[in-house]
């Protein structure tokens, strides 16, 4: 059974960790870059397998580990040291990270200087498309709506429990009333949250639809929606 171990390291600690892995005889498996959609930073994942340790572990409990070094929060033009002096086989992946993500990896043993891949768009993997952004936002809104719904359900449950307690202890219990008032207020907040989340979800869905449309058509739809909103506002004011 394969297990994966992820160790987050800083850029300045990367080479010492790689050196340590090389020292214990770990095989280099791969290296890849990832774009963090939320904050626009990059993440690098270096993967290794220590075959001897894996075999010993398998003999003990039938499992073995794939070890990953993860470097988080990299800015696009921040310098990253190459590990090719320890593992020469990394050169295609480092050049790939440079050409497809625009990452600045220094001291590569074989450096193609941006000509490893013949790409028609510069740094294509660093581009976040409107579809991805819209899908990501929609997922966040859906999560927010689910959380609001869960909060509302919890508040209702608490209110019901308090009401049942009041029935048992009598209507004059001031402390119980205070709790019930607080729970009711929480419920009202939750309703407001839910309405806001629904509206946001609807907006996100519309944004996703527009992102998938032909840009010219999307612009026309956006203009029509804006005009409708303005008309509605005027009617309300009148």
């Amino acid at each position: 059974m394969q297990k994966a171990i992820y160790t987050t390291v800083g850029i300045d600690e990367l080479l010492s960790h790689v050196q340590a892995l090389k020292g214990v005889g770990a095989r280099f498996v791969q290296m890849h870059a990832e774009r963090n959609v939320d904050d626009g930073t990059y993440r690098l994942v270096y993967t290794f397998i220590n075959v001897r340790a894996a075999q010993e572990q398998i003999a003990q409990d039938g499992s073995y580990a794939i070890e990953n070094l993860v470097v988080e929060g990299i800015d696009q033009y921040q310098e990253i040291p190459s590990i090719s002096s320890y593992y020469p086989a990394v050169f295609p992946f480092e050049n790939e990270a440079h050409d497809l993500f625009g990452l600045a990896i220094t001291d590569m043993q074989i450096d193609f200087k941006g000509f490893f891949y013949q790409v028609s768009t510069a740094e294509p993997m660093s581009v976040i498309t409107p579809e991805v952004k819209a899908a990501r936002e929609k997922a966040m809104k859906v999560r927010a709506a689910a959380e609001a719904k869960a909060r509302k359900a919890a508040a209702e449950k608490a209110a019901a429990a308090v009401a049942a307690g009041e029935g048992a202890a009598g209507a004059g219990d001031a402390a119980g009333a205070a709790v019930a008032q607080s729970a009711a207020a929480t419920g009202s907040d939750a309703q407001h949250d839910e309405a806001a989340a629904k509206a946001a979800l609807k907006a996100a869905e519309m944004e996703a639809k527009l992102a998938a449309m032909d840009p010219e058509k999307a612009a026309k739809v956006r203009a029509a929606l804006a005009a409708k909103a303005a008309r509605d506002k005027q009617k309300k004011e009148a």
Partner: protein
Amino acid sequence: MAHRSVIPFGPQHPVLPEPLHLDLVIEDDRVIEAIPQIGFVHRGLEKLTEKRDMHQFGYIAERICGICAVGHSYGYASACERMLGIEVPGRVQYIRTILHELSRIHSHLLWLGLLADAFGFEALFYRSWTLREQILKIFESTCGGRVILSINEIGGLKHDIEDSELAGIVQTLDAMRPDYEALVHTFLDDNSCGERLHGVGVISKKDALELSMVGPFGRASGVDYDVRMFGDGAYADLAAFEPIVATDGDCYARCQVRCAEVTQAMDIIKELVGKIPHDGIGGRTKLTPADGARGEVVIEQPRGEAYYYVRGNGTKNLDRFRVRTPTSQNLAGLTHALQGVLLANVPMIILTIDPCISCTER
């Protein structure tokens, strides 16, 4: 001092089935340095996860390569299952492994045919591909496709392969064995083959380890590493598994390793068919990876260790899909093997690493 010049080799060249470019720095007729260049047909498949959901992407993952297609869909599905925390039934693991081993046989027979063709032994090329055709017919009769089988999906298989069909596979393989042994005898014992292969493109074990070489290319240099020895999935139920290793590190050793791996794959299939459980074939599952959930696997493709990585983002699309194919790992070994060889031997050495540029250009 001999005159130095640079020969551009490829991407369009009679010995290259796929677009690989090498700048060969030569002195007289000896190669001093070789610098590889790929990227002529890069397809950006990893970026396509933005437009295709996880189930749809299974079809794309399978099309990364036309030779190791089964392995790619197996690796992709396994990585997604690990990310989603799905455990597939034993029968699924067995059928995936059987098809994967059949794929290894057809890949190695294809390679043996290309090798024979490269040193001008046409009859041997025909015989290798005639045998390979039987594996493609097995694929066609059990899955409907000769190369793209589309049987794997996240959570299980699209359809079962009946026990009677599995028994038929074993019968076909048994019937192939005498012809295959005769073929191997020619490859390994015939002088015309041996003279082109012995002592050509030697890589020592130390260098192979240093360059992280994988697959038969590494094992021919004595690297005792095959992912199957870790016993993942159905491989765990094999009575014994030992990687096939040779020590000479030359083109002949690479041929020797691949020849033996075909027989080994036949034995594995026979053993697994005899032990296959009947616990269902799983099925398509709901795609709900947590934001930031990750799954990764390594499997042994015909050309060596392949790595698959997926990362979810809370939607039905993946945030990142990564596949590291064996050829991209062996590029460093290729440049090393070409240093100091005669120019006439360059095509043979390139062929013996069994480069798959379409895998690398995913």
